C-alpha cells in the first residue's frame, strides 16, 4: 500500500506537469534553444577566429623570402616593406599593421634568427602559424640553394596529417579522440543543465505546495517521505520523457549536430595541426561523430538519473524549509557548490580524462555524474571505477533521502521566519 501512494503522487506530479503548456513549450523549444546556444558559442568562437585577421609587415633583407609569404594564409596579410626599422616601428605603433617581421640577410645561410615585433606580444596560435611559415620559407630557400630536385621539395613539404585514434579494450576505434571529447563535454553539460532545471522544478513544486497550504491535507493521507519521493520520481519521469523526445530528435538531426559541434570546437582540444582550417575541424568531428557504443548512452542516462535523484532530493529538502523562492538561494549555495565545481573542472577533465583529478572527481558522489560521463565518452574507464562511483552515488542518494525527508517532515509545516542552516540541521535530530 505504501509503495502505491508514492506511485499515486508520482503519477499526479507527472500528469499535472505533462499537461501544461510549459511542458509542451519546453519540450518543443528545448532542442532549438540548445542548438541555438551551441550555435552562439560556435559563432562567437568563429568570429574570434575572424578577429585573428592580422597584417604583418615583412622587412625582407634577403630579397628572396617574401614571395614565400605572399598569400600563404587567408587570415594573415603579409605586406612587403622597405626601409629603416624605425619607420616600420612607427607604422605598427600607428596601428597600420599588427607587427613587423625582420628577416636578416643571412637567415638562409647562417645561424641568425628572424625577429618579430608586435605590440600584442605574439603568442598562441598566431605565433605558431608565423613560425611555421617562416620555417617552410627558409627551408625552401635552403633547398633551392642546394639545387635539389623539385620532387624532393614536394616530398619534404607534403603535409603530414595526424589522426588520433582512441584505444580501448575492445580494440581500436575510428575517429579522433577530439570528437569523443566534444560529445562527452556536451553530455556533461546536458546533465548539468537538466539536473539544475528539473531539480529546481522539484523545489518549486515543494514551495508551491507549502504556500498553497495543500500540504497539510496531503500529509494527512500519505507519509511525508512518500510525498517527497513521489514528487522526485514523478518529475524525474517527466524529465526522462522530455529527454527521450530530444534524443529522438537529435538522432534524426545528427548531421546538423555534427556541423554545430564542429563550430563549437576549440582547435586546441582537437589535437589537429594548429593550422587546420575550419573545414578540417568539421571534417574531423562531423564524419566520426556517431561512432559510440550503446553503453555510453546507457551510462549517460544512468548518471543523469542518479545525479538528478540526488540533487532533486536535496533541493526538495531545501524547498520545504522556505516559503519563497528567494529565501532558498542562500541555502542552495552549499548544495550547488559541487555541481558548479564539476562544471568548472570540465575542461580539465576533457584535457586529461585519466588524471588523478579526473578520477577523484568522477568518484566523489556529489561531483561524479558530469566528469564520469565525460570520461566514459572519451576513454575506457576501468570497471572498478565505474562500479565504485555508482555504488557511492547510490549510497549517497539514500543518505540524501534520509536527510531530506527528515528536514522535509518538519519543514513543510513550518511557517514564518526563514530558518537558518543551523536550525535545519537541528530538525534532522527530531524524532
Amino acid at each position, binding site marked *: 500500500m505504501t509503495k502505491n501512494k508514492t506511485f499515486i503522487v508520482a503519477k499526479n506530479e507527472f500528469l499535472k506537469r505533462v499537461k501544461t503548456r510549459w511542458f509542451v513549450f519546453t519540450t518543443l523549444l528545448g532542442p532549438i534553444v540548445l542548438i541555438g546556444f551551441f550555435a552562439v558559442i560556435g559563432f562567437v568562437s568563429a568570429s574570434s577566429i575572424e578577429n585573428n585577421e592580422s597584417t604583418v609587415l615583412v622587412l625582407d633583407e634577403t630579397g628572396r623570402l617574401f614571395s614565400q609569404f605572399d598569400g600563404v594564409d587567408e587570415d594573415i596579410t603579409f605586406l612587403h616593406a622597405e626601409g629603416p626599422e624605425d619607420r616600420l616601428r612607427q607604422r605598427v605603433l600607428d596601428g597600420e599593421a599588427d607587427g613587423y617581421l625582420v628577416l636578416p640577410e643571412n637567415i638562409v645561410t647562417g645561424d641568425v634568427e628572424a625577429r618579430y615585433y608586435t605590440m600584442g606580444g605574439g603568442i598562441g596560435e598566431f605565433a605558431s602559424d608565423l613560425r611555421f611559415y617562416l620555417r617552410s620559407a627558409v627551408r625552401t630557400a635552403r633547398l633551392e640553394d642546394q639545387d635539389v630536385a623539385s620532387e624532393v621539395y614536394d616530398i619534404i613539404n607534403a603535409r603530414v596529417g595526424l589522426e588520433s585514434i582512441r584505444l580501448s579494450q575492445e580494440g581500436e576505434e575510428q575517429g579522433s579522440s577530439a570528437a569523443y571529447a566534444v560529445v562527452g563535454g556536451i553530455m556533461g553539460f546536458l546533465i548539468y543543465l537538466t539536473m539544475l532545471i528539473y531539480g529546481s522544478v522539484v523545489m518549486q513544486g515543494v514551495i508551491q505546495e507549502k504556500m498553497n497550504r495543500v500540504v497539510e491535507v496531503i500529509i494527512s493521507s500519505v507519509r511525508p517521505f512518500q510525498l517527497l519521493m513521489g514528487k522526485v520520481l514523478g518529475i524525474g519521469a517527466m524529465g526522462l520523457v522530455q529527454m527521450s523526445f530530444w534524443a529522438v530528435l537529435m538522432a534524426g538531426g545528427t548531421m546538423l549536430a555534427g556541423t554545430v559541434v564542429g563550430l563549437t570546437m576549440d582547435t586546441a582540444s582537437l589535437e589537429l595541426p594548429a593550422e587546420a582550417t575550419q573545414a578540417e575541424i568539421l571534417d574531423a568531428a562531423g564524419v566520426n561523430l556517431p561512432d559510440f557504443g550503446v553503453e555510453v548512452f546507457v551510462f549517460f542516462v544512468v548518471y543523469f538519473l542518479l545525479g538528478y535523484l540526488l540533487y532533486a532530493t536535496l533541493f526538495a529538502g531545501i524547498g520545504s524549509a522556505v516559503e519563497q523562492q528567494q529565501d532558498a538561494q542562500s541555502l542552495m549555495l552549499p548544495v550547488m557548490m559541487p555541481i558548479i565545481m564539476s562544471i568548472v573542472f570540465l575542461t580539465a577533465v576533457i584535457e586529461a580524462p585519466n588524471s588523478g583529478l579526473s578520477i577523484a572527481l568522477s568518484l566523489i558522489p556529489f561531483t561524479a555524474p558530469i566528469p564520469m560521463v565525460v570520461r566514459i565518452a572519451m576513454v575506457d574507464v576501468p570497471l572498478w571505477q565505474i562500479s565504485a562511483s555508482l555504488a557511492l552515488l547510490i549510497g549517497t542518494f539514500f543518505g540524501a533521502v534520509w536527510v531530506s525527508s527528515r528536514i522535509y517532515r518538519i519543514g513543510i509545516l513550518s511557517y514564518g521566519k526563514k530558518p537558518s542552516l543551523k536550525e535545519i540541521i537541528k530538525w534532522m535530530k527530531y*524524532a
Partner: protein
Amino acid sequence: MPILKVQGISKQYEKVLAVNNISFEAQPGRILGLLGPNGAGKTTTIRMVTYITIPDSGQILFGDDRVGPASQERMGYLPEERGLYKKMKVGEQLMYFAELKGLHKSVAKERIRYWLDRMGALDWVSKATNELSKGMQQKIQFIATILHDPELLILDEPFGGLDPINADLLQDVILELKDEGRTILFASHRMEQVEQLCDDICLVSKGEIVVNGALSDIKKQHGKNVVMIDFEGNDGFLDRLEQSGSVRVNARSLRHAEIRLLNGTPSKTVLSAALEDVSDITRFELVEPPMREIFVTAVTEQQGQQALAAEEV
C-alpha cells in the same frame, strides 16, 4: 464504545511543551468540540491524531489499533490553513485526494459526482481552482475531506468564509454524517456554533485540558448563574452592580445585558438594582452560562493559576 482514544499524549517543540499529557475520547455519532485559545495545542493534538506528527509520549488508539498509515485512510481532515492546487481542475483534484485515501477510481468518480451535486457545485468540475471564489474553494475542500467516507472527521473552522446559506448547507451535511454514526472532531473559536453542534467538549489551554465532558453536564455543573435581562430606560444599575463586585457584565448593549453572578450573589440583587433605574423590564431570566462564558472563565482561571505557580517558583 469510543472510537478514538487519546491517552496521555505529550509533544515538545524546542523549549515549548505544546501538548502536556492530554487524554480524551471521541464517540461515534457524536460531535466533540475541541476548543482552546490560539496556541493552546489544538493543531498539534490534531496533527498527532491524523498521524502527521507523532507524540513524544502517550498513545492514540483508533478502533483497536494505534494510529498510523492505515488509520489515515479512515479519517478526513480539514485543516484550518488549507488550500488546493491552483491550476488543477476541481474534478482531477478531488480524484487525486480520493486516490491518496486509497479509494478506487470508479468508486471515487461516483462519489465526486454525488457530493458535487449535493453541494451545488457540479458545474465547476472542469474549472481550475483559481477560477473559483473563496467560498466555492471551501466547499471543494470539504468534499475532499469526506469523499472517502471517513469514520472520523476532523473539521477545523469549517464554516470560515462561507455565506449563511452555504454555512447552513454544510451544517446539514455535518449533522447528517453524525446521525449516520460518524465521529466528528470540531475545532472552532465560534462559540455559538460550538453550542449548536457539539455534544461533548474538550477545552485545552496551554497544552493541558481544562474542561472535558458532555456539553450538557458541563453546563449543569456551572449551574444557572447568568442573568439575561432585556429592559427599557437607564442602564446605570449595571455600573453600580459591577463596581460592588457582586457581578461581571459579559455583554452589554442598548437594551440588553448578560450578567454573570459572582460569589453566589442571588439573581434578586440584579432585579432590585435594575428596578431602581429602568422604566420597564421585558425579560429577566436566570440561565446556564453560555459556552463563551465557560470558555473565558476556565481559561482565565487556569492561566491565572499558572501565573501564580510561576511566581511561587
